[in-house]
């Protein structure tokens, strides 16, 4: 059995060409399959952060007049 395994790994003397070719095939496709996952995670993280910030700003803007009733008539855009 070990002999046949060795024969298999030797690829009839072409191991140095056959195995790198298969390795490149698998490595490139594995890399390709990771790209969309990482990309999607990054986009979701950025979008989420942006939306949460936006919601917090709007919340603050709504709350501001209640804190300062005098300023309600002319809501100022705070920097």
């Amino acid at each position, binding site marked *: 059995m070990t002999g046949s395994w060795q024969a298999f790994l030797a690829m*009839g003397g072409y191991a140095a*060409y*056959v195995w790198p070719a298969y390795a*490149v095939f698998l490595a*490139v496709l594995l890399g*390709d399959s990771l790209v969309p*996952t990482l*990309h999607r995670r990054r*986009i979701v993280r950025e979008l989420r952060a942006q*939306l949460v910030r936006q919601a917090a700003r709007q919340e603050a803007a709504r709350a501001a007049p209640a804190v300062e009733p005098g300023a309600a008539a002319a809501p100022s855009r705070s920097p």
Partner: protein
Amino acid sequence: MAINIWKYASPQAFFPLAGKLAPWFLALAGVLGAVGLYIGLLVAPSDFQQGDAYRIIFIHVPSAWMSMFIYFVMGVASVVAVVWRIKLAEVVAMQSAPIGAAFTCITLVSGSLWGKPMWGTWWTWDARLTSELVLLFLYLGVIGLYHAFEDRRQGARAAGFLAIIGVINVPIVHFSVNWWNTLHQGSTINFFGTSKIAADMLWPLLVLTLATKLYYVASLCRRARADLLALEGNKAWVHELVAPEVAP
């Protein structure tokens, strides 16, 4: 049969559909890929001339077919995108490019690794090898042009034009072995005639061809989903999806 498939051209409808389909395609591609590699490496007999070096064919030829097939799909999607300005067509075209480039790289590297023991050289400037290298440059050109624009849709339009012009190279790659004298061998597989390959060598080739096709669909669906989130980042359906607690 009253299902209106055109509704899936809308990003909002396509997104969940692609999400449902992608894992199935990916799993099927993985299973078929494993079966194909197993038969190709362990079951198929050695070649009487090339010994075991010929086994590179099982990844080289399916990858080469994918490099041309994906370019063709990208070209067709680009025509649809440029003429009708359908957003999903732009996404399909632009997200196909990196997958096609990946398969083109595999084709070139595995071909080189096959050429060294059989021809005695890693590379030669014959018509088949050169046109395949041009195919890689076209993919890289499309990717680069797409990213050169601040506005994504404008980039997709410009890169779409390049993709359409580059389609001319696909038949050149395919017929190069007939049109010119090349060191590269002619077609082994003939879908409309007798193939010059034994049946037990043909099977793993066809199984891996199917596996790479399925992988492409899966990868395209997954890439398109990520890209649609970015493109539609200001739409309510995306807000609902990524931050439901703060969505209005």
